[in-house]
């Protein structure tokens, strides 16, 4: 369907539209018009993504003189694929109605591991080895060598891509990662570098959060994006955590050992051509390299050029060939001073000495029996006094290391992750004086008998990482199904939205049925509160609840637990007491484990079990990967049970430090933040079951604490509005009864467009009939 929103003709690929999608588009357009940022909360299952995509693409189509670029950030690769699939649908529709002028280029961008088509590189186990494997074949010096010596292996796909040079472009269209790979295979071009290259020409780029938020990645991928871009963070309820993680580093004993090994190797490399370096003083002379075949006369000039580069500052990395870049500086671009590298680390050996001293110092700090907490300023001061490394030197560590490794032509970068971590750490503490703290723990509190010291640099201020994004781009849209309370996010992220709205869901029928279960079948309270969680009665009651439910609910059931250890414990107990066996007689059981491959396969099997009618239960963990990114819509999830309240581990030193920071800086109370955080996770978990209004699902919050007002009220309004008072304090038998009733009701046919008084599905005529204002009247 096609309709006007003020001056923009919106192309929407379906025959009908939900009213909330329509008002979502209106708000979004306001933000775009105002060239400002916005914060929009709309329940899951109301088609946010397609509403966003169709408004923004239509907006840029209607203003051909100043087309805006859409940068769409998803949390996971599979969400990326889903978004691109929706965009494909939309694109086809627009082309059908507008013809070739609607053509756009939309690409998804991911790591080499997901885009590479070279079978020898792909054989590697993990991402870092794939990256290194690629570098081994495509680094500029490797290719230069290959030009002289045909026995040096190179990547055929990359060579073809280079040969095609400017002819290597993607024709307009929507490319999922799969499509990119297929295109690359067909043309014989490397899809990864092709996509990297096309990012600057694409109208829509879909990639992961980190490509924009994590300075290490953003520095190489996103630095050339124009200001006239709309950045969308979808499913952004966890965005503060992503920001914080992006700037946090931890150092363990293994890291230090690895770093020492790395340093030895680097010094060997340097020693093997010591002469060269001796001759290369501040006044460079031309040395004649007489060493291995690798080092020829050109070495001297390259080393000299490195030195010059270091003198001029580090902003020159942009001139490096695309294949030579690695992860960029961990600090944010604006914080990197465009000045010369300090003289005391310009020489490789001196730099190595600095690093050795730093590692030595950190090792000393790890040998502690007590938990220590320090601010970056204090830590830097103590490094300066004990190891003689000043703050400015620390700040340049990462880039100096990078430069050195390039000069040494090291391709197996995956071997050097440890020293990289140390330099990351050094650069971060050298750069930021506030918003961080350094915490040294001698062991994990939960296993005090196993010494495992760790030094963590943890970021507390989410606004640090996201600040350049807000500053740089014209509009930033933060949207999710759970952003309640919506006024908290601007404070956490420190920005000023021009539009900040929370939409409710207009339902044709009560297709969601939230319940709070406070008591088990024996009428005793259930909870995962610390003092109750290991109570056998609670475990049994939880088991009985699930057992009753699997016998009533058809198809898929999803269960979320508060942590892996709790889930493992409870499953073992159920297995011993035979409850699990009884559950298995009704449905197959699948479990999320910490192994991603296994979990993915379990999920795939779970879906197949639901598809074939066998029915299945999936056990998962709140805050886990499944809870974050997998949908359990339609028959894949008719019921979701949230066992307990997913509070963070409140004894964690890092969490305590963060809470303290939040209290001091934003005046957010600890308890409020913890509850907010737990409830957004819970809402996120249960929100996975619904995808459209034709869908239906039940949600059981199984913990007595949910019945308390202060907890419950933090749930998003679209859940609260369906939580009837009668369902606030249920026991297992009552919940079972409600479930039966609900399922029977949902099985009846119904009128999809809603009643006459309250339309929940609008057709094109409906939209034309009413002015812009009347939608609101109808909705609210």
């Amino acid at each position, binding site marked *: 369907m096609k309709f006007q929103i003020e001056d923009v003709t919106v192309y929407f690929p379906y025959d009908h539209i939900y009213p909330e999608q329509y008002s979502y588009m209106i708000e979004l357009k306001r933000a775009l018009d105002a060239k400002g940022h916005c914060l929009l909360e709309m329940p899951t299952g109301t*088609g946010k993504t397609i509403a966003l995509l169709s408004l923004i693409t239509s907006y840029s189509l209607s203003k051909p003189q100043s087309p805006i670029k859409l940068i769409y950030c998803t949390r996971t690769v599979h969400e990326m694929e889903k978004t691109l699939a929706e965009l494909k649908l939309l694109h086809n529709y627009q082309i059908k109605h507008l013809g070739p002028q609607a053509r756009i280029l939309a690409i998804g961008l991911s790591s080499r591991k997901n885009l590479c088509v070279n079978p020898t590189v792909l054989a590697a186990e993990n991402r870092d080895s794939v990256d290194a494997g690629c570098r081994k074949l495509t680094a500029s010096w490797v290719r230069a060598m290959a030009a002289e010596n045909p026995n040096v292996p190179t990547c055929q796909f990359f060579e073809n891509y280079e040969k095609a040079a400017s002819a290597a472009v993607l024709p307009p269209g929507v490319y999922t990662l799969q499509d990119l790979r297929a295109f690359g295979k067909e043309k014989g071009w490397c899809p990864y570098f092709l996509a990297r290259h096309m990012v600057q020409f694409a109208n829509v780029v879909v990639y992961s959060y980190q490509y924009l938020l994590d300075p290490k990645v953003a520095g190489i991928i996103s630095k050339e994006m124009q200001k006239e871009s709309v950045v969308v963070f979808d499913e952004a309820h966890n965005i503060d955590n992503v920001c914080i993680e992006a700037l946090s580093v931890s150092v363990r004993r293994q890291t230090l050992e690895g770093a020492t090994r790395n340093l030895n190797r680097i010094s060997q490399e340097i020693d093997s051509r010591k002469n060269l370096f001796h001759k290369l003083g501040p006044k460079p002379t031309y040395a004649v390299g007489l060493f291995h075949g690798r080092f020829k006369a050109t070495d001297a000039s390259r080393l000299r050029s490195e030195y010059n580069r270091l003198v001029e500052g580090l902003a020159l990395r942009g001139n490096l060939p695309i294949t030579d870049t690695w992860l960029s500086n961990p600090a944010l671009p604006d914080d990197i001073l465009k000045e010369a590298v300090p003289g005391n680390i310009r020489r490789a050996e001196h730099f190595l000495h600095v690093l050795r001293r730093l590692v030595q110092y950190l090792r000393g700090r790890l040998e502690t029996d007590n938990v220590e907490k320090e601010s970056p300023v204090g830590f830097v001061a103590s490094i300066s006094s004990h190891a003689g490394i000043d703050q400015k030197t620390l700040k340049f560590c990462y880039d100096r290391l990078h430069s050195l490794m390039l000069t040494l032509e090291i391709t197996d970068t995956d071997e050097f992750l440890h020293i990289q971590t140390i330099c990351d750490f050094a650069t971060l503490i050298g750069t930021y004086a506030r918003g961080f703290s350094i915490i040294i723990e001698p062991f994990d509190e939960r296993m005090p008998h196993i010494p495992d010291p760790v030094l963590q640099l943890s970021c507390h201020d989410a606004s640090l990482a996201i600040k350049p994004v807000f500053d740089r781009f014209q509009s930033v849209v933060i949207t999710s199904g759970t952003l309640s309370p919506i006024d908290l996010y601007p404070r956490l992220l420190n920005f000023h939205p021009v539009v900040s709205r929370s939409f409710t869901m207009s339902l044709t029928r009560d297709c969601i049925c939230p319940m709070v279960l406070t008591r088990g079948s024996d009428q005793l309270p259930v909870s995962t509160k610390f003092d109750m969680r290991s109570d056998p009665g609670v475990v049994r009651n939880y088991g009985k609840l699930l057992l009753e439910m699997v016998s009533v609910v058809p198809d898929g059931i999803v269960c979320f637990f508060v942590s892996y250890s709790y889930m493992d414990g409870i499953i073992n107990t159920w297995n011993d007491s035979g409850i699990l066996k009884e559950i298995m007689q009704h449905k197959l059981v699948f479990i999320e*484990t910490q192994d991603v491959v296994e979990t993915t396969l379990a999920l795939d099997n779970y879906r197949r079990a639901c598809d074939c009618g066998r029915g299945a239960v999936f056990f998962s963990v709140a805050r886990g990967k499944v809870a974050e990114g997998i949908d359990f819509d339609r028959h894949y999830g008719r019921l979701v049970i949230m066992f307990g309240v997913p509070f963070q581990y409140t004894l964690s030193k890092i969490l305590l430090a963060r809470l303290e920071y939040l209290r001091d800086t934003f005046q957010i109370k600890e308890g409020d933040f913890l509850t907010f955080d737990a409830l957004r996770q819970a809402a996120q978990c249960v929100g996975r079951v619904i995808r459209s209004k034709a869908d239906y699902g039940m949600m059981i919050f199984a913990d007595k604490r949910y019945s308390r007002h202060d907890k419950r009220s933090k749930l998003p309004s679209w859940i609260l509005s369906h939580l009837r008072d009668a369902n606030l304090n249920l026991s297992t038998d009552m919940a079972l009864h409600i479930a039966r009733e609900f399922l029977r009701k949902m099985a009846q046919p119904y009128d999809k467009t809603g009643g006459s008084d309250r339309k929940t599905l609008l057709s094109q005529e409906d939209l034309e009939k009413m002015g812009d204002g009347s939608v609101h009247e109808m909705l609210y």
Partner: protein
Amino acid sequence: MASGHVTKRAKYKTTIKDPGTPGTLRMTLEKILFVPHNPKSAGKLDVEFRFIKGQKHTKEGSSKPPWLNLTNNQNGSFIFEFENYSDLQDCRDFVGKVLAKSGEVSEKPTVTYPDEQLSAAEMELRIKLLREDSELQKLHKQFVLSGVLTEAEFWATRKKLLDREANKKTKQRLGFKSAMISDIKPSTDGRTNKVTFNLTPEIILQIFAEKPAVHRAFLTYVPNKMSERDFWTKYFRAEYLHSTKNSVAAAAEAAEDEELAVFLKQDDILASESRSKIRRVDPTLDMDADEGDDYTHLPDHGIFRDGSKEVTESENELYRRTLSQDINRHAAVVLEGRAVDVELEDTRSVAEALARSKQESSTKGESYGDTSRERLDRVSRMTEIEDLQAPNNLPLAPLCIKDPRDYFDSQQVNALRTSGDELAGTEQIKCSLSSQEVYGSLRESISVIKAMGLKDPIVKPEVAHQVFDALTQSISTTKYNIGKNPQESVLDRLPKKIKEELLHHWTSILELLRHFWASYPITTSYLYTKVNRLKDAMSHIYPQLEEIKGSVPSDLRHQVSLLIRPMHQALDAAIQHYEADMQKRSARSGERPNGYA
């Protein structure tokens, strides 16, 4: 024997243990007569030969005395002990001859069913079936005992019931059990510390399917390297070590015993399988790809210890196996279904069959190689929001089954308009078909089907429509008349006796008609007589139906006649067909005096 009778001295025994009454045994073609020497004793016997079903006798040279055991059709038996074997032989030959003769007589009408000799098991099955199903018993009584149908004919149409046992095996392949077998409970003898595990081929198959490494180990080790018993002992030793969750102990034991280590280690076959499977996984849940895109979680980057990540002991990781893994693996195997379709007998055959089926599936998997297309389709299907769009399939009015009366009420008008004349039409179609026409149309439709496949409905739309209309009409009038309660049916309103009678008639008519139509075309004299018998039986039912109609109260008469009408129609059609056929036959038999009729 030519004399037609034989007389011998013998002892008559009622049971084997009975010492026997001495007397004279006289057998004629008709009967067996035994007269005891002592006229006062009670062993006098006079049995007609037609009750005798078979005979058994002891062998010459065996330790037993010469006995002849005649069994009658009530499963009773008469035992005679002769003085010597030659007497026994004479009697035995005589009985055999007489039985053969009577057998010829009784077998004559059933030449088409030469296998009338039933084993006791079959007989038992039939009796059991009759006993279980009172309706069947009634029919049996009505037709077989009254001679309308023979026993064989009656059962011939119910072959399915009879080989139910045989069918059971092939009907549906059983999958694996949903419950885990990993916890096979051992039994202890209570005195020593020994435990005993009971393994069935079923369990073994499941173990092999869930643990390919164990399967491979079995194929390589047994029986060359160790006996099957040792193999399983080791296996359960490993399982025990797992259950103690003591990975250190497991590692220690594995270091000492390399065969045991096979069971304790992570399953490498599973790992490689999962690596290939992950490529085919639905991209909307491919979390492995996320991992590859995640630069925050570089080793040592991000927040390391905030309680959300779990602590695992990294040492002895090799020997850890969690319950979750087992459960996932088990569910996956159950979902895959059973690939092996052999009689599960011994472990070796189970293992080999599984290996074969695996090989097949792996070659199949390779040929499917590129599933990317399918994956993409799946994604695009998943992305569409279903209720924003008109459904893809043809427009249809949703059928609401809340109250069928709504529909039939609305059809009442239509039904009244198209009154009974169309019903007459259907009848005509049914009976005006001559065999040539049938043959012609059959050939035609076969050629059509050959040409374009079975696309068109077998029943022509017009005919279907007529039948449908008639049905609708009768149902809707009934519904209309009954009114309120949708659950109530016409039959419930009739008196119970009449209802049962009607139902019984209906089943018996169906039975008769089935036999009747199955007899055509009449090719043997046997069928001819059968058809006659059936026709008589049918015409017998006819007035009974009328009688029922008459006996019901007037307010129900209309309903009953509605119910009876289709029965009448069916009977009419049959009788009409019979008469037409008779006419043709008599016309032809004039030309061909040697006709079998």
